Structure formats: structure tokens, C-alpha cells
């Protein structure tokens, strides 16, 4: 497998921790201004050059912008990381070169020191950590979405994980999203520019929901109840110790995917966990009608007794009745190869009023992508997620999608695409093979 393929397939798994920094406020301003200036320069230049030269100029220009952004990115943390995720999952937003740069950045967040944590505790719970817990580890043991996680022990002896959000992250997401909108202004000569704005607004709303840990706690509880009696464990949370910025939950002992893989587990174990991870997604998709949009390996704990801990519920979207019906009709049409119903689905997805308005090139690419996505379902029987042909074909389609850069799409589907790609990438990483088809179709039949 070539490096590029490898890269694309692991992009979903390289997300690092975001933590805010005051500096970001002005460094983003300067970088976006510079990129905007470059776009204008390009827009002016391209009027006077030949087609081939245009392409060359464009690549050269994108690369320069990417490098320039990289230069300032060292100072940018927190919400900017979210922006990176957004761009990576919406390749239509920015040129591929920029997406690659964002993805390759290592956002090593400086952990919050204990004095800062104490202040957050005093503001949120009115007490210092020592007054609440019988033991509180001053050093974080894991990174979390928009914060860090500390181990602690409750007065009743229960081991807990306490997620603490970095201060002012919501404020900076707002500021960064504003900056992103400004940055996109400089791309207004691009086709379908008006749809970019909708994508940014949608992402902003989802990220802002993620900064309220209480919303995460309630979704976590919903999932906990959902998975009772299965091999999936969702931690119990402690409402009296949960606020907008602090989330206290049961500590689940086990390994994360990379530690699990480092021990070179056999195929049976890999298949077992691959199947459980798939079940966690498919079951919540059909029974709760939610898209679990932040699928990354750090959100799972692979427990020694074979159970799977499902621990992060910050980023999700909920289907409304209309969307859900459209989704199920669309999926059924895909499985049955019902062209008329499929065109109706695509028309809605691309926000057109008539199928005739659809761009045939986009339809062709979309259908090929869908075929790739549903291959493990239509396979009927064990499916090898690490199969060379499947993986390379997926990478090729992704590259094509990056290149074409379609923007006219209901923003909601950015999240389900992200989940599906994330799932396939994680299954590839586990190199597992199992009957995904029965799992998926069984759930679909049960809940639709």
C-alpha cells in the first residue's frame, strides 16, 4: 500500500487534543489575512495565464498558503483544532493541500496545571478537588475533546474519570468560526460558494454543543441505558459532579486501540472488538437515530474481560423525522438499486428541487462512493475490512472527492460521512473481518 493511501486511511485516527490558548486570537487573524491576500493575488494572476500554467500556479499557491498557515499554527490550539477536523471532513471546503497540512499537524496541547484546574472547580462546583474527592490525580491521564481527563476517587471509594474543559473554549470556537468565515470570503469566486457558509455555520453549532459537558452527560446516559445487557459498557456519570465544564464519570480500566494493537493480538480478539465497535455505532444509529460523529480510537476502551468501554459522547447529531425517513428510503433504494428513489434521495441531499438539476458528474462520484460504503453490507457474510482492493479503491475515491471539491450538500451529511469513513478506517486499523452485513441489516430490520 502506498504512503498516500496509508495517510488517507489513518487521517481519522490522528486527531490530537485541542486546548485553548490566548495567543490564538491574534495569530489566526494574521494568518487568514495573509491567505486572503494570496487568493486575491491568484485571482488576479490567473486571468492572464494559460490553462496548464493556471493549474501549476494553483498548486504552487496552495502549497505556499499551506506552509504559511503551518508557520502560524504552532500558536493555535483548541478550537482551531476543531477547524482542522472540519476541514478534514469536508474536503470540499479547502484545497486538498491545505487539508493535508491541517491533518499532519500535531496538536500537542499543554496540559492545564493544577492551579488552573482548582479555579475551574471553584467556579463550577464551588469547592476544590480535594474537598470533593478522597484522591485526585493532579496530572491528567488522557486528553479529551476540548479538555483533559484526571483520575480520582470518590468518598465512597469509587474510581472515577474527571473530564475538565479548558477555560474559554466556547468563546474561542466562536471567534475562530468567525475567522473561518472571513477566510472563506476570499474564496467567493469558487463555484457554489454560498453552500460553504452553511457548512461552517452547521459545524459551529455542533462544536458549541460539544462544549457543554451536561449535554454530553445526558447523551452518555441515554447510551448507557441503551447498551445495558450487552458487551458494551458506557460509564455511569455523577450528575452532582457534572457541570458545563466538568464531567465526572465511572473509570473504566482497559486499553486504547493503539495499546491493544501494540500487544499484537490474534485475529479472534481483533474481530471481536471490531464487531463490538461496529455494533456500538450501528445500534445507536438505528435505535436512537443519532450519528455518532466523533469516531476516533481514543473514545473506546478495550477491556481485559472482552467488554468494550464506550467513553466519549461529545459530538453527535440527531436525525429529525424527515431526515430519518429520507435516510432509510435512500439506504433501501441503494440496496435494491432503485434508480428512481435513489435520484430522489440525491436530489434532497444536494438541495435541488428536481432530479434534472443534479450534476451528472457528482451523481456518478456519489454513487461510486456509496457502493464502496455499502460493500461490507452487500457482501453477505464475513467481510475483510483490510482487503487490499477495498482499501485502495476507497482511498482513490477519497482523492477524487478532494479533487472535485463539491460543496452543494446538506451539511448534516458531513457528520454521517465522517462517521462512516472513521468506522472503515478504524476497522482497517484493527485488520478485522466479520459478518458486518448481518449486524447492519439485522439492526435495520429491527428498528426501521
Amino acid at each position, binding site marked *: 500500500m502506498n504512503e498516500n493511501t496509508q495517510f488517507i486511511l489513518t487521517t481519522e485516527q490522528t486527531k490530537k487534543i485541542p486546548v485553548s490558548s490566548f495567543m490564538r486570537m491574534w495569530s489566526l487573524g494574521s494568518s487568514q489575512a495573509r491567505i486572503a491576500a494570496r487568493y486575491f493575488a491568484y485571482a488576479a494572476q490567473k486571468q492572464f495565464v494559460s490553462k496548464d500554467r493556471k493549474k501549476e500556479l494553483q498548486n504552487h499557491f496552495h502549497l505556499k498558503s499551506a506552509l504559511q498557515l503551518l508557520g502560524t499554527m504552532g500558536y493555535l490550539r483548541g478550537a482551531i483544532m476543531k477547524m482542522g477536523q472540519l476541514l478534514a471532513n469536508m474536503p470540499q471546503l479547502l484545497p486538498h493541500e491545505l487539508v493535508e497540512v491541517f491533518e499532519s499537524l500535531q496538536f500537542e496541547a499543554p496540559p492545564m*496545571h493544577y*492551579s488552573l484546574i482548582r479555579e475551574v472547580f471553584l467556579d463550577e462546583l464551588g469547592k476544590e478537588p480535594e474537598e470533593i474527592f478522597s484522591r485526585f490525580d493532579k496530572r491528567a491521564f488522557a486528553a479529551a475533546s476540548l479538555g483533559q481527563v484526571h483520575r480520582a476517587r470518590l468518598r465512597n471509594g469509587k474510581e472515577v474519570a474527571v473530564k475538565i474543559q479548558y477555560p474559554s473554549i466556547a468563546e474561542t470556537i466562536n471567534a475562530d468560526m468567525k475567522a473561518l468565515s472571513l477566510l472563506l470570503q476570499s474564496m467567493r469566486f469558487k463555484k457554489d460558494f454560498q453552500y460553504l457558509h452553511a457548512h461552517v455555520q452547521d459545524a459551529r453549532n455542533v462544536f458549541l454543543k460539544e462544549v457543554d459537558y451536561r449535554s454530553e452527560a445526558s447523551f452518555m446516559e441515554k447510551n448507557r441505558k441503551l447498551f445495558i445487557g450487552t458487551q458494551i459498557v458506557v460509564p455511569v456519570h455523577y450528575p452532582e459532579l457534572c457541570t458545563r465544564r466538568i464531567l465526572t464519570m465511572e473509570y473504566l480500566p482497559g486499553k486504547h486501540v493503539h495499546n491493544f494493537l501494540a500487544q499484537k493480538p490474534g485475529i479472534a480478539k481483533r474481530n471481536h472488538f471490531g464487531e463490538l465497535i461496529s455494533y456500538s455505532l450501528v445500534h445507536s444509529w438505528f435505535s436512537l437515530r443519532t450519528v455518532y460523529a466523533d469516531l476516533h480510537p481514543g473514545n473506546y476502551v478495550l477491556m481485559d474481560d472482552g467488554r468494550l468501554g464506550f467513553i466519549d459522547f461529545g459530538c453527535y447529531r440527531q436525525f429529525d423525522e424527515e431526515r430519518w425517513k429520507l435516510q432509510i428510503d435512500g439506504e433501501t433504494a441503494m440496496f435494491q438499486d432503485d434508480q428512481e428513489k435513489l435520484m430522489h434521495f440525491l436530489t434532497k441531499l444536494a438541495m435541488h428541487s428536481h432530479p434534472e438539476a443534479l450534476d451528472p458528474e457528482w451523481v456518478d462520484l456519489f454513487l461510486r462512493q456509496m457502493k464502496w460504503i455499502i460493500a461490507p453490507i452487500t457482501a453477505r457474510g464475513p467481510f475483510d475490512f483490510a482487503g487490499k482492493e477495498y482499501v485502495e479503491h476507497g482511498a482513490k475515491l477519497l482523492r477524487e472527492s478532494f479533487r472535485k471539491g463539491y460543496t452543494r450538500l446538506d451539511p448534516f451529511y458531513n457528520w454521517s460521512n465522517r462517521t462512516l469513513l472513521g468506522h472503515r478506517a478504524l476497522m482497517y486499523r484493527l485488520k478485522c473481518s466479520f459478518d458486518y452485513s448481518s449486524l447492519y441489516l439485522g439492526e435495520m430490520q429491527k428498528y426501521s
Partner: protein
Amino acid sequence: MIFFHIFFDFISGQHYVNVTKVTLTQVTLMRITQEAKKENRKKILRVAEKLFTRKGYEQTTTRDISESCGMAKGTLFNYFKSKETLAMTLVAQAMDKGRKNYLRRKSGRESLVEELFLLVASELRALRPYRDYIGPVLESGMSVFSKKSICPAGEEVRLAHMETVASILDAHGFEMVPNSIPVTLYWSLYLGILAFWSNDTSENQVETLAMIDYSMQTFVNTISANLQLREAAGNE
């Protein structure tokens, strides 16, 4: 009997030690007077605090305060030279409480940035009741421009804070040289934090926490680089 008593002149800001020969009756009378004075002072501060909160700092006059205290305006001035001094005294008391909290909360295992953060955060927490009007008070009491008419209470606040900073720096192996560039930098950052905090509209002023962290990091980076430079020069 020989009786030593120390009193503080609020107008000149000087301490006086008087040595006088007095009778027992006089001692009792003086004690009563002293206690009455103390009580009056406390009462003025209490009333002023209430009025500042209720009416706003700008809208409250010294006449309002003296009337609410049931004393003549002139008497009020015997205790506090101006409204600014009065407010600054409230601020100084809160900061003092904040510093005591910092001493209670520190474990001695904090890094330099963390300890400076703890000091400033503890002070700001104690200052919360005064946040609405701290801007104009600090402007008049701790102005960086005015050298001639320094408010004594403001100057006391500065000295007390810097004394604590010096002891923190000392515990981490840094010597604080008065009037040096790093000290000026520290004080500018500190006033910047206070100004930012007084206008911080975020919930529980969380943005200020990021600001304190960033400012203390900046200061420590600066003095660490200075130290490294000096060490490098010494090695040569």
C-alpha cells in the same frame, strides 16, 4: 506608667510612635477613643461598600457616605482623605484576604508559573465583590502615569503584592531587582490582567483565567531567558 502607642496617620501615611506618661484613667479613656475610632473606620468602610454596590461607585459621593454613617463630612475626611482612598482601602483589604488564601492554598510543590497563577487567581477571587467598580478605583489609585499624587492605599497594595511576588520568585531561585525591566514587565502584565478582568463578560470570568495563565507564562519565559543569558555569559 509608660505607655507606647502606635498609630497610623491616614493623611500622611506615616507611623508614629509616641512615648508619654499617662494615668490609668487616661489609658482607659484613650482605649475607648481608639476603639471608637476603629469602629468608625469599620463603619465607614461597611457603609461605603454597600453604597458603591447599590448606587455605583461613580454615583456615590462622600456626602452620601458621611450622611449614611451619621457623621459630618469633615469627620469622614479624618479617616479617609478621599472617595478613591476609601475604595482603594476596600480593595487593599480584599487583596490581603486573597493573599492569605493563596498562602493557605499553596502546597509548595507548584511550578513558578503555577504559583504566580495561584496568587493572582486567589486575589481576583477575593476581589469579586468589587469587580463592578474596580476599574475607576484602580485607575485613580494605581495609575502608572501619576508619580506625584500616588494614592497611599494604592501604593500599599502594590508593595504588598510585589513583596509576595518577590518571595515566590525567591523560592524558585530568582532574585527580584526593584525597578528592573522584568519587574516593570510583571507589573504591567498584572495591571493588564486586572483591567481585562474588570471588563471580562465571560461566565465566571473564565477568559481571565486564560489571560492570567498566558501572562504568567510570558513573564516566566522572559526571566528564565534572562537567567539563561546570564548563565551563558558567566560560563564564557
